[in-house]
């Protein structure tokens, strides 16, 4: 696996870390049309969050396209070491976005797969690699897209509430999604964002990690839910469905009333939008 960012002269050349990434350049104009890549976990477990993302985008005057051929970004196989299988699933997704519209992903780790890891999967297929690099350049995690491309202005219509924000590790480290999430929440006048203990620490999901190493993962999610519950928050918000599945499953098992909600649903509800009412 050659890193996409370093110019490796020969496969055996000693590698340097990729150069420091500068700030991302955002388009000056908000686009008229976008693709939504829903992600597999959201598709099955949090479809209303996907619809809320669509409604937020539509409210910004953007026409949303949802390619029905989409499935999974390939991450589960990729992180399990089944690289060939991941590559073929990734290839199937690549075929879906033929227009040059931005691709918006309401789940941070899947957006990171498009943005950072597809290039590794196709490093020795030059034609595909060009396609992948173009896709990466127009892929946005939802919070980032709302904030930096739509330059959304949120008008809070809800009553005062305290909210804890959990950000998935890959979204935080690959795309700075925690900054975007905080910034969006800060636009809501009645919402007070509260910090929680060890906020940047992993919730213990980690894809197949949670079933391969149940003791360790269980200890991590117990600590995470305790920190969230101890933060004095009325609500927990996250923009990553894997984390939400993990955190909500643990809250439920512990018979706590607190549940994590997708950022898209929270933002839509606070600003007077109507959800489909489809509950998971």
């Amino acid at each position: 696996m050659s890193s996409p960012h370093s110019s490796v002269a020969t496969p055996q050349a000693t590698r340097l870390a990729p150069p420091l990434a500068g700030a991302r350049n955002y388009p000056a104009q908000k686009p008229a049309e976008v693709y939504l890549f829903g992600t597999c976990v959201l598709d099955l477990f949090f479809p209303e969050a996907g619809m809320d993302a669509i409604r937020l985008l539509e409210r910004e005057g953007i026409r949303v396209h949802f390619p029905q051929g989409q499935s999974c970004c390939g991450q589960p196989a990729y992180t399990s070491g089944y690289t060939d299988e991941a590559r073929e699933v990734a290839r199937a997704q690549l075929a879906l976005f033929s227009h040059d519209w931005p691709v918006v992903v309401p789940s941070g780790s899947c957006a990171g797969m498009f943005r950072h890891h597809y290039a590794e999967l196709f490093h020795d297929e030059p034609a595909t690699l060009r396609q992948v690099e173009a896709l990466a350049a127009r892929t946005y995690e939802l919070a980032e897209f709302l904030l930096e491309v739509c330059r959304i202005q949120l008008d809070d219509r809800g009553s005062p509430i305290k909210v804890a924000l959990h950000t998935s590790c890959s979204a935080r480290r690959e795309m700075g999604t925690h900054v975007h999430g905080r910034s969006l929440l800060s636009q809501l006048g009645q919402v007070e964002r509260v910090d929680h203990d060890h906020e940047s620490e992993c919730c213990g999901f980690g894809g197949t990690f949670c079933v391969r190493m149940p003791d360790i993962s269980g200890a991590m999610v117990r600590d995470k839910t305790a920190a969230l519950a101890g933060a004095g928050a009325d609500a927990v918000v996250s923009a990553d469905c894997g984390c939400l599945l993990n955190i909500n499953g643990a809250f439920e098992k512990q018979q706590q009333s607190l549940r994590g909600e997708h950022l898209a649903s929270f933002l839509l509800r606070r600003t007077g939008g109507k959800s489909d009412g489809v509950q998971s």
Partner: protein
Amino acid sequence: MSAHADTPAIPISFKRRAHDAVHDAQLRKNFRGAMDFLMAKRAAQFPDGDELERLRAFGNRVRARALSKLPDLLQRLEANLTRNGVKVHWAETVDEANAIVHQIVAAHEAKQVIKGKSMVSEEMEMNHYLEGHGVDCLESDMGEFIVQLGNEKPSHIIMPAIHLNAGQVASLFHDKLEVDYTEDVDRLIQIGRETLRRKFFEADIGVSGVNFAIAETGSLLLVENEGNGRMSTTVPPVHIAVTGIEKVVENLRDVVPLLSLLTRSATGQPITTYVNVISGPRKADELDGPQEVHLVLLDNGRSQAFADSELRQTLNCIRCGACMNHCPVYTRIGGHAYGTVYPGPIGKIVTPHMLGLEATRDLPSASSLCGACGEVCPVKIPIPAILRRLREENVRPPAAEPHHMRGQGSKYSRRERYAWKAWRTLNTSPRLYRLFGLAATRLSGLIPADIGPWTEHRSAPKPATRTLHELARDHLGED
């Protein structure tokens, strides 16, 4: 598939040890406290994020440059050390390294060896080996001394006794050194000082590790706070340094960025109390220092990592321990659960080269790939990417070429491979995928409440009544 038919004991016991560790409240508390302390100390040393990122990039470049000419630098190092009067030895395996040390010990009829902190000597299990040959081998770093006294292994590469609190050390000293029980840390350290000072005085041979071996000047650089490293390398008549072949840097000035990264990342210090640069034994007109200095250069699997340019990055490591300090897994289970000399994220990526993937097959999986380790690594080792790569090596068919690693395919399972192929088919066929979605949402009642490891700590996930594919099609039309 013989590779997993004769499963070795270590990986199985990893899960058992991890299980025990997460249920040990005292251990969890000790590690959480210690890791929080070390993370805060490091953060305080890097107030300027821009300086940190530029220095990490520089550190990465210095290490990568050294690796890009490693054989040349090792030869230059050897030539310059030899010119300075240091004897250089090479060992491919820990057995060879121990034999070299033993030869030197035997030549001097040495009975007592005092050791400064050295992870390579842990790798060699030198204490055990020398004791088997009738030689006393005493650790002098306070943390190492404590774990040796307790007949334990280090649980952290920088702070070996980090799993113990003061009360536990107090009990240990009381039992083993027959001193009055005290939890006063100053007093405990003074007891250690008095005990060990006598040993420095008596020792025939001092053993140390090396933080950086400098090719340009033929020098060995060691950092430490206690002074035991200086004692071990100065007082006994013979000094044996042991180190890995990757520890060499090209020029003296290359240590400036690495030193700054090392001490700030490791313990949150601008510099350690001592930086000790050794460039030779005692000269004719000098009144102290060892009469003989030896350097043992150990491979022990490093050349295997070196052979692949992705895995080679593992050898950038300067052993600061920041990856373990920031690792949520290490924080939960501590260092002993890994069952390896190097615990934590760096241990997971370096140990498979030393012991083979058979013996370490669960280690690459013991990560949520959260990326905290890669984010803090001062020399920018892409630890999560390497963990993923090791998972790939773990599940490749054992006989598949090219063969990158000893123990390739140690987790190869035909059944699991078929499952992923089925997953691939499902996710590359939109019709099948949508059918699956329909089935999962409509038949969600059939999901049992107990689905193995997931439901030990969580309720079973419940699919929604309709998929996003369906909702989106209703709302947006077919796209």
